[in-house]
């Protein structure tokens, strides 16, 4: 299945669940989903045999402070057909909440912990949402663009 | 002729003259063992240093590298340098240690194995004390090492050390059984526990390794396990337990454990040589002009080399596999071996 066919198929299968489906200049299929149907779309992409995206290759987030949003990005890969898709979900920057994909792909557990750790996106329903890389008592989310590091200077009292 | 017996005789004559000169002849019975123990200690210290060097060279050659070659000729003094380093380095102690067991553990570990050397006959008559129950004595006295290891594991107040102690206790208690069982057929055939007597029996017959190859194999295997050597070194498995029971020891105290381990190797190899490989006897009669203690040392080094070769070629067994191997393979085979030997002794009339 080429990306174009995949695009039309997704547009018809998930008609009112998808905000946009585009093919980028780099020939990657990028699908932006509506927040409320995020889980449904992901579940469908994994379980329907004509998609068979069994592999959550990568999950991360991108911070867009100008548009006041953080985009959660998932890259899926199908071992069966060898096609790739990018799923995007925009969340509010001030109150970043997204449903967890942990029950669909186990690998999302750590990916989401990492996104939480570095961007502060709260994945609702996650079984073990703790900081994964930064210290437990760390108070900032370093990959956000407005992150300012004053951590290394110990100020005299 | 140069033989162990003559050397011992002339040395003791010299000593007794010395006693007479300072007027201590009356205490001959007390002083003789003390001197003998010191001689043995000196020998063991030098020999262990040589063995450590040898182990490093053996491992180096097996791993296609050179090994120590800087200190002294062929790096022979490397171990001396290491020993000096160990003695002068800072002694790091855990704060919440259990003081008395923490300090006595290395001492017991060293003394218990060292005491085993007392009954090893290096040549005919060249032995500190050829006890009547020599074999049993070695097994009994070396079983103290378990207490040392358990004390070390417990008193270090370290979880890895404690786990190492657990493992060691389980391992040594388990492997003591096949170790003793593998020696029983030999005792049945010779009818004595005296190590000198066992060698004398072999001088009339063949070496026991020919009669009792299975027992020899079981003995070497369980002796390796008793000495906590790879592939049975799970009490100190460095990839899991860091240093095991001696994680928290440094300096001289660590050196004592280290020394104890090497002496355990020497003792068990010496027992293997004495019991299975004819002790001080030459392999062929026409080679008898070479003194017995030289034959003994050659055989001893060969057996130790074998133990070293195990260490540098095998991976480490897992703790439950180790137990399975001991209880489900070695012990049944050893018991079967005893039964077969018993029948042979009964029907072909050797021994009792």
């Amino acid at each position, binding site marked *: 299945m080429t990306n174009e066919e995949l695009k039309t198929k997704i547009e018809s299968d998930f008609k009112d669940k998808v905000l946009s489906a585009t093919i980028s200049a780099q020939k990657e299929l990028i699908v932006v989903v509506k927040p409320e149907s995020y889980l449904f779309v992901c579940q469908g992409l994994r379980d329907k045999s004509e998609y068979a995206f069994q592999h959550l290759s990568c999950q991360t987030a991108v911070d867009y402070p100008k548009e006041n949003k953080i985009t959660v990005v998932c890259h899926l890969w199908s071992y069966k057909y060898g096609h790739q898709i990018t799923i995007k979900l925009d969340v509010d920057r001030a109150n970043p909440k997204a449903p967890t994909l942990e029950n669909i792909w186990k690998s999302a557990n750590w990916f989401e912990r990492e996104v939480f750790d570095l961007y502060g996106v709260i994945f609702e329903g996650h079984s073990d949402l703790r900081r994964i890389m930064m210290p437990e008592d760390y108070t900032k989310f370093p990959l956000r663009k407005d992150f300012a590091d004053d951590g290394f200077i110990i100020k005299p009292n | 002729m140069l033989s162990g017996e003559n050397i011992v005789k002339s040395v003791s004559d010299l000593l007794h003259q010395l006693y007479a000169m300072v007027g201590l002849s009356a205490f001959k019975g007390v002083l003789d063992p003390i001197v003998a123990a010191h001689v043995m200690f000196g020998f063991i210290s030098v020999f262990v240093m040589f063995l450590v060097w040898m182990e490093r060279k053996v491992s180096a050659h097996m791993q296609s590298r050179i090994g120590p070659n800087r200190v002294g000729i062929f790096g022979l003094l490397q171990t001396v340098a290491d020993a000096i380093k160990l003695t002068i380095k800072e002694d790091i102690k855990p704060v919440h240690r*259990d003081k008395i067991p923490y300090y006595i553990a290395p001492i017991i570990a060293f003394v218990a194995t060292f005491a085993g050397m007392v009954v090893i006959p290096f040549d005919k008559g060249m032995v500190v004390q050829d006890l009547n129950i020599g074999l*049993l004595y070695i097994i009994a006295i070396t079983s103290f090492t378990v207490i040392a290891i358990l004390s070390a594991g417990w008193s270090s107040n370290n979880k890895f050390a404690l786990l190492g102690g657990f493992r060691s206790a*389980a391992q040594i*208690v388990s492997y003591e059984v096949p170790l003793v069982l593998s020696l029983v057929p030999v005792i049945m055939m010779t009818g004595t526990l005296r190590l000198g007597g066992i060698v004398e029996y072999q001088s009339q017959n063949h070496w026991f390794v020919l009669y009792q190859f299975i027992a020899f194999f079981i003995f070497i295997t369980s002796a390796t396990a008793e000495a906590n050597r790879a592939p049975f070194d799970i009490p100190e498995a460095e990839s899991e337990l860091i240093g095991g029971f001696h994680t928290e020891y440094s300096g001289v105290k660590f050196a004592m454990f280290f020394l104890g381990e090497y002496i355990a190797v020497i003792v068990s190899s010496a027992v293997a040589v004495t019991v299975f490989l004819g002790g001080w006897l030459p392999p062929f009669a026409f080679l008898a002009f070479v003194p017995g203690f030289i034959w003994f040392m050659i055989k001893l080094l060969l057996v130790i080399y074998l133990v070293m070769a195990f260490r540098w070629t095998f991976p480490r067994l897992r703790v439950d596999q180790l137990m399975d191997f001991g209880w489900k393979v070695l012990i049944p085979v050893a018991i079967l071996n005893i039964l077969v030997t018993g029948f042979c002794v009964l029907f072909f009339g050797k021994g*009792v």
Partner: protein
Amino acid sequence: MANVLFYLIAGVIIGSAFLAITLRNLFHCALFLALTMFGVSGIFLYLNSEFLAAVQVLIYVGAVTVLIIFGIMLTRNVMDEKTRVMNGQVFLALVVAAAMMAISFAAMNKSVFKTNDHPMAAVSASPDQSQASPSTHTDVYSLGPELIRPEKGFAFAFEFVSILLLSALVGAIVIARKDPA
């Protein structure tokens, strides 16, 4: 000289036995128990029973005490807990101990011991000499027939004990085994 040695060993035994039951750290108790056992083997050695001494060390120090220590380590947290030395059964225990002592004394009084004028002589003597005087010296070689030969009368007891131990072993395995369900 020989008596001094005896009192020394006896002192060690009694002292370490006392410490073994009074110390509050169970692990230390076990260590002193090992020392007691070792002392007892010293007494055996003093009585020319080399075999018994070695077996005493092998079994009681090498196996029994080790298992006790093993048990302590498995059931206790590392060094953070002290045990009570006494509990409600202390008087009962005293009565039992006294009774045991009385029985032992009675048994000792009734038994006839072969005494030996120079107990330390055989220990330091060379093996050839000790074999020359088998009457004063329990040799391993003579110990076996004593135990096994039917006419000596110990064979039944020996076999009985081994069957008892075997059944104890099987029982222990049955108890220790986890329910497969």
